[in-house]
């Protein structure tokens, strides 16, 4: 070492655990006006359902989508009905918006090169980005559930809950099941978010990544509804999204949910690995 080296600033040690970047990412996701609007739109769904059921004739609620005919018996079903309603399109779209933007958004704005030269290792950047998307997916699902329960219990009775199997449980028991449902749907969305994260590493334009990710959700549901392709169904993510109804029986029928979680896990591992493989080698020239 020459004399010049003595002039160098002492190397700063890395902090073993630092949650600052994660917290910064969460605040980026949740303070972003667009994402707040998405959450607000999702919150409107249970409100609209509750009000529509309330103002319609009480004898007019047979049939209709799942859970709708239970709402007048107990308000908590507003949450389940709203979750079913958003699950096919609004919720995947909401997750697409944040997942597609995760890497492509930073790349498009050029902020990616500054994060990488801080330096943030690429693996850490992806992990933090993915965690941010999953947190948003949880927040979106929980928003629908919480608003649903709140408006449901204001407009409708809230004592014992008659489950799909016909048995009655306490409201606390039903709320516990609602928490499980929210976690299950979050897990499903986490798998979908992994696809979005991968797409986000492929393109530089966030809008393209968002559209492509939302397209995957739609294509998956179309495939699942083609009778000739029923053999493919069980391998599709969306096939298992509605299995959460099984949690509302006594005893709980966990078969579909467990199968759904296995498929979810496979998707998470596969697409996160793809995203990592792609991003680790990617030339950042934006």
């Amino acid at each position: 070492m020459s004399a010049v080296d003595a002039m160098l600033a002492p190397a700063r040690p890395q902090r073993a655990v630092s949650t600052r970047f994660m917290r910064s990412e969460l605040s980026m996701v949740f303070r972003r006006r667009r994402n707040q609007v998405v959450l607000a739109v999702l919150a409107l769904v249970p409100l609209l359902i509750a009000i529509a059921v309330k103002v319609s004739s009480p004898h007019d609620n047979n049939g209709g989508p799942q859970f709708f005919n239970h709402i007048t018996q107990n308000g908590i079903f507003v949450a389940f009905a709203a979750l079913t309603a958003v699950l096919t399109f609004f919720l995947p779209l909401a997750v697409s918006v944040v997942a597609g933007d995760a890497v492509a958004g930073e790349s498009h704005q050029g902020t990616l090169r500054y994060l990488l030269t801080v330096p943030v290792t690429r693996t850490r950047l992806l992990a933090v980005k993915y965690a941010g998307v999953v947190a948003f997916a949880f927040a979106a699902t929980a928003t629908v559930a919480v608003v649903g329960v709140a408006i449901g219990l204001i407009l409708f009775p809230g004592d014992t809950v008659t489950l799909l199997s016909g048995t009655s449980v306490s409201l606390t028991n039903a709320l516990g099941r609602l928490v499980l449902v929210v976690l299950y749907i979050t897990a499903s969305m986490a798998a979908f978010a992994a696809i979005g994260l991968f797409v986000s590493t492929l393109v530089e334009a966030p809008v393209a990544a968002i559209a492509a990710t939302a397209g995957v959700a739609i294509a998956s549901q179309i495939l699942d509804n083609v009778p000739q392709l029923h053999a493919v169904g069980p391998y599709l993510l969306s096939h298992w999204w509605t299995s959460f109804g099984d949690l509302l029986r006594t005893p709980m029928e966990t078969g579909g949910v467990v199968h759904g979680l296995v498929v979810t896990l496979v998707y998470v591992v596969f697409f996160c690995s793809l995203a990592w493989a792609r991003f680790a080698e990617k030339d950042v020239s934006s």
Partner: protein
Amino acid sequence: MTTTATRGSDTGTGHQAGPVSLAVQSSGLTKRFRGGQVAVDHVDLNVPQGAVYGFLGPNGSGKTTTIRVLLALIGATAGTHRLFGQPMPAAAATVLPRVGSLVEGPAFHLHLSGAANLARLDAADRTADPKTARRRIDGALDQVGLGAAAGKRVRAYSLGMKQRLGIAAALLQPRDLLVLDEPTNGLDPQGTREVRTLVSRLAEDGATVLVSSHLLSEVEQMCTHVGVMHIGKLLWQGSIDDLRSQQSARAHVQTVAPTNAVDVLERLGLTAVTRNGGDVSAELIDQAPEDVCAALVDAGVPVRRFVVDAPTLEDVFVSLTGEGFDVSG
């Protein structure tokens, strides 16, 4: 003429006496893009520690791509490079915290304030102490004169203000190396002067500065060393004095007796004597300008005007590249 470095060690022998540690060193660095275009072509960069190294070249000559490879943003197709003797990109996590950079213009989240953008970058830095973050962010903003605009959204910043914010981001921590890609882009003359002052202050504090520019005058004013890029190749590098001595000064004589003047200059041994009407010029080899002037007067040449032009970097550049300082294709 270029400095040479011993591969595999962090010391090299420069044109200056004694060993010089290299802050940046590359050998055979090459980047070929997927389209087949070779943006960086076997570049052997040697940036001595403590130098203000002007990375000079027209737009499109490969400066920014070289910088991106140096910072491990893009992978090299061939060749190796080291920062402070440590192999990159393997040592990126330990070396890059010592490096502040501004790459191809500033880039920030437009909906966040200047201070919030710096806070995000600081949060991403695992070597940064959160307790001192506020103080370091304010300090960096003050250094670039953005203290008053810290709370404003970046969307409302002018290009010059964004450029300053980019430099502030590079100054969030004490740095051993600053890589500044076109730092005066978009700045007014006042801002340009401030950047020059800042660069010399950082250099005085012991930092190495690698500053790319397509402005010859800028490099001439702030740099101790120069590397000249042209169509992906590093044509020349070394100290700025060595670069100047590549070309000799030229004496210009204005007189009513140009023929006599030509005779005198040739007799004195000046080369490349040219005559254009009453204007005669020639290259000085080792003659002192005052002796030349005296000889002309002694020989009875009525001298109306006698000027010696030091070679400009532009002259040198033209002589190196054989063409003007235009955009590389």
